Structures are given as structure tokens and as C-alpha cells.
């Protein structure tokens, strides 16, 4: 959880440093590959619908977690949504202060049963409220690489 005291002095203890020397190369997998290709090439949001369970997943998935049925088809959804909850974050992971506090939100994505976690842009913290309608802000097409950060954030409609 969080620190209530920061240990900057370790010189009264015997210690040494270590690390795990590995890097990772991740595949998107069958479902997310479709989602990120559509973001990159068309700026579209692709979802997957399990007809048996009536659940629409965003981003697109290749299977349904409830029935484990495969999902081949994707459906385009608008990428808009409404704020479900939000926080104003002041610290980085190493507890150094952020230059500017950032607003992280959970967004109920229209036409789906899922929420996105992403940053809010173009809005002051005091103006955010539950239900605020937002739309995605994408990088320019030439800068998109097929990554979650192709979405810069969400801003009020």
C-alpha cells in the first residue's frame, strides 16, 4: 500500500542491490489485435458481443469470460462514454510529485458492458462529476502505432 515513512537511509542495515534482468515482448492476442489495428488504421473502437450471454466486451476479445464461448465478430462502438468514477492523482509511482495533478477516470463506454480506465483531458478536476459525457482524443493517424497510448485521453463532449 502506501508508505507513511520513507526509507532513504539504509546505511544502518547490511544490504546489497539486485534486479530481475528480463524484458518482455507481448503479443496482443487474437482479440486485442483486432482492437488495436482498428484504432491505428481507422480510429475506430471495436467491441465483441457474446450473443449467448448478451455481454459486449470492449476492447474486443476472442472469448467470453462467462461461458468461454469464442467470439469471432466485432462490432464498432462510438468510443464515447460517461464518467463512472475519477481520482485526481498527485504522485508518481516512486512517490515523486507530478508536475501537474492528472485526472484518471473510469468511463462507462457507450454500447458496451465495459469500462475504460484512462485520463481525462481538457477539464478541471472541480468540473468532473459522475455521468459527465466524454469522447476519446486520439493521436494523429501518422503517429498511431497500435497502442493504448494512441488514445491520449477522454474529454468532455
Amino acid at each position, binding site marked *: *500500500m*502506501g*508508505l*507513511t*515513512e520513507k*526509507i532513504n537511509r*539504509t546505511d544502518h*542495515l*547490511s544490504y546489497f*542491490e*539486485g*534486479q*530481475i534482468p528480463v524484458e*518482455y515482448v*507481448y503479443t*496482443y*492476442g487474437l482479440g*486485442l489485435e483486432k482492437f488495436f489495428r482498428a484504432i491505428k488504421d481507422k480510429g475506430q473502437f471495436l467491441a465483441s458481443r457474446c450473443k449467448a450471454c448478451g455481454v459486449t*466486451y470492449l*476492447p474486443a476479445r476472442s472469448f467470453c*469470460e462467462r461461458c468461454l464461448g469464442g467470439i469471432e465478430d466485432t462490432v464498432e462502438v462510438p468510443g464515447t462514454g460517461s464518467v*463512472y*468514477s*475519477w*481520482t*485526481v*492523482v*498527485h*504522485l*508518481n*509511482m*516512486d*512517490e515523486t510529485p507530478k508536475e501537474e495533478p492528472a485526472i*484518471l*477516470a*473510469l468511463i462507462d463506454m457507450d454500447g458496451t*458492458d*465495459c*469500462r*475504460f*480506465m*484512462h*485520463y481525462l483531458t481538457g477539464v478541471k*478536476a472541480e468540473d468532473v462529476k*459522475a455521468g459527465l459525457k466524454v469522447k476519446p482524443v486520439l493521436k494523429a493517424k501518422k503517429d498511431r502505432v497500435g*497502442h*493504448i*497510448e494512441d488514445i491520449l485521453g477522454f474529454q468532455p463532449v
Partner: protein
Amino acid sequence: MAYQRVAIVGAGITKFVRRAQETGKELAAQASKMALESCGMTMDDIESVSLGTAPDAFDGVHMKGEYLSDGSGGWRKPYMRQFVGGGTGVFAPIHGWYHVASGMFDTCLVVCSEKMSSCHPHPQGAFKTIFDHTTEQPLNPTLIWIFALEMNRFMQTYGITKEEIALVSVKNKKNAMDHPAAQLPMEITVEDVMNSETLAWPVNRLDISPASDGAAAIVLASEHVAKRITDKPVWIDGVGWNLDTAYWATRDLYYPRYVEKAARMAYDMAGIKEPKREIEIAEPYDPFDYKELHHMEGLLLADRGEAVQMLLDGKTQRDGDRPMCPSGGALGVGNPISATGLMKIIEIFLQLRGEAGKRQVPGNPRCGLAQAWGDLMQVGTVVVMRR
């Protein structure tokens, strides 16, 4: 269901600290030895061992079960490690319960050990890797941020204020002043919580538990063995656990449905029909102050949105009608992830035996529970105990 009745017969716990000089295995050995000595047993009497410990990344050893096995009494024993994130500390005794309840063994040593301080610059770096690597990690979320999202939703849904929630922190840190293992015992006010640094609104520094090093252990025994060891066995009468959707952001954050399902499983097993009346004392998991209230509702110990009123009415104080976290909880005793859950089990064990010393609640409670919560905020683990 046919199974052996299982009792807790002994318990041990190390001091919880920000940075222990002891290694994780030394902490495990200290807690294990204490647990054995508390009931006059030796490793020769132990037929099986269950270890609970949280992410391998804390230690940078990707076989943490094996790494901690010597300190946990695993040498030449049927030994298993399990891990469900923050829920581990209450899952480990459930796992041990199975070993004995099944009839396979008559005794089991359950050990939970955590050393978070090795992880630099901060264990939050290890927590980052619990998120989905494609859709979430690139946004650099920390656990504090996602708890902030949940706390805000809980506040919004029921119109609860930060000041009200801060009372949980005030209560638990004060309770911890009577706990010999406590890392953050302190007498603070709501104003202190409100004035502490904002980490991720609405979460302030004093709303949350610390990172800790520490270990805890208990000894489980079947009925016929337990009765030879002690005249004060505490029975594990119900166990339950449950996991919600892997898409954590999609859950109803204001209500822990998976905790309810875990609790109902445990209540059914223990024959509990009215948890609000029958569960006299509880240790809900409280890594953040709002979580105690959130979990009381999931555990059906309060109606939805009503836990805060029990808090305001003083009912959850140690001398109240329904004491919550009389130990001081994760907020006060500290939060060495897996060891925290087992610390809660031990608190109920001691309270039901009338051996909690200055922390003893009045009224000679007969039935209590401990609960933990973890994975990506979607696993609930519950143990119901009776004397």
C-alpha cells in the same frame, strides 16, 4: 458434506515493521516457532504445511514458495504455497483447513510471510505488474489510484464524506496502540487524516495502510488431535472465497459482490442465518479506511450504505455492539500483505479465547470472522470461527 472438524490451536506473529533486518524466511521461522510453542508442539507433530505469500516480485525470487520453504517448516513435508494477492492471508488458512478437513492430515502449519521493503524504490513498482500489460500498465496506474476510483464511487453512491470515512483510520490506529506487533499505532484525529498529504484524491496519506515486513502463523488440528492439545480450541466452522470479473474496471465498485458470495458460502457452511446478529466480532480487511465499511456491507454485517452509520454510532468500536478490527487492522498493525490476513485470523482466535489482553472486547463473543480481499480488487476470502 463429510469432513473432519478443524480447530486453530496455536498462533504466532512477528512485529510488523517498515524494514526488517530479517529476511522473509527468518520472519516466517520466527512466527512459525512462536505458533508451535504457543501450543506445545514441534515440527515432528506437523503433518502438512501451507504457505501464503504475495507477489514474487516483492522479493525478486520467482519461486517464492520454495524460497520461503525452510523458514515455513516445509522441509520434507507435504508443502504447498498459494497466492490470491491481498486475499492470501485468509486463503492460506482455508487451504490448510482443506488439508485437515479432508482427512488427509491431522495437523497443518499455516504460515504467511511478507517482506515488501526489498522492493525499490517502492513496492508500488511491483504492484504495477499486476495490471494488464497491454491495456493498463502503459497508463502507469498504482494501486492507490484505483482504490481512489473505488472510494470515490463508494462516496458518490451513498453520499458519504471523507471526514466520516477518516473515523475508521482514527479508530483502527488507536486500537493498534494495544497490539504488540503494531507498526503504526497512534492517536490521531479526523483533522489529522484530512490534513495529511493528498496522494490521489480522495485518498490521503492517513487513509491508507503502510507497506510492511512481517509474518504470522497458526497451527490447525483435527478435532481428536485438537482436544489433546488444548481445552480452548477455536473451530473453523465456515470458509468461503470468490472471484469476480477479470475486467476489474467493469465491476460495481461501490459494492463488493464477490465478498458477499464468499461470505454466503462461509455462512452456509457454518449454519449462520443472520450474520448481523450471529457474527459478534469481525476483522474485515482494511488496507484503506473506506474498505472496512465497504467490506462490512459485502459481509452482510451492515445494510448497503449503512456501515458508516454503525461507525458514527460507535458500534464498531472495541467496546461497541459490533467491534470491527479490534486488532488495529492493516491501518494500525500494518500491512505485510499475506501476513495481514493471518494476523486478522489470529485476532479473532485470541478474542474468542478471551486472550486478547488489553484488546479484549467485552461480552465473551462466541462467533467471529476474518476477511481479506485482493487480486485485482476482485477476490474475497472469508473464515468464520467459533469457540
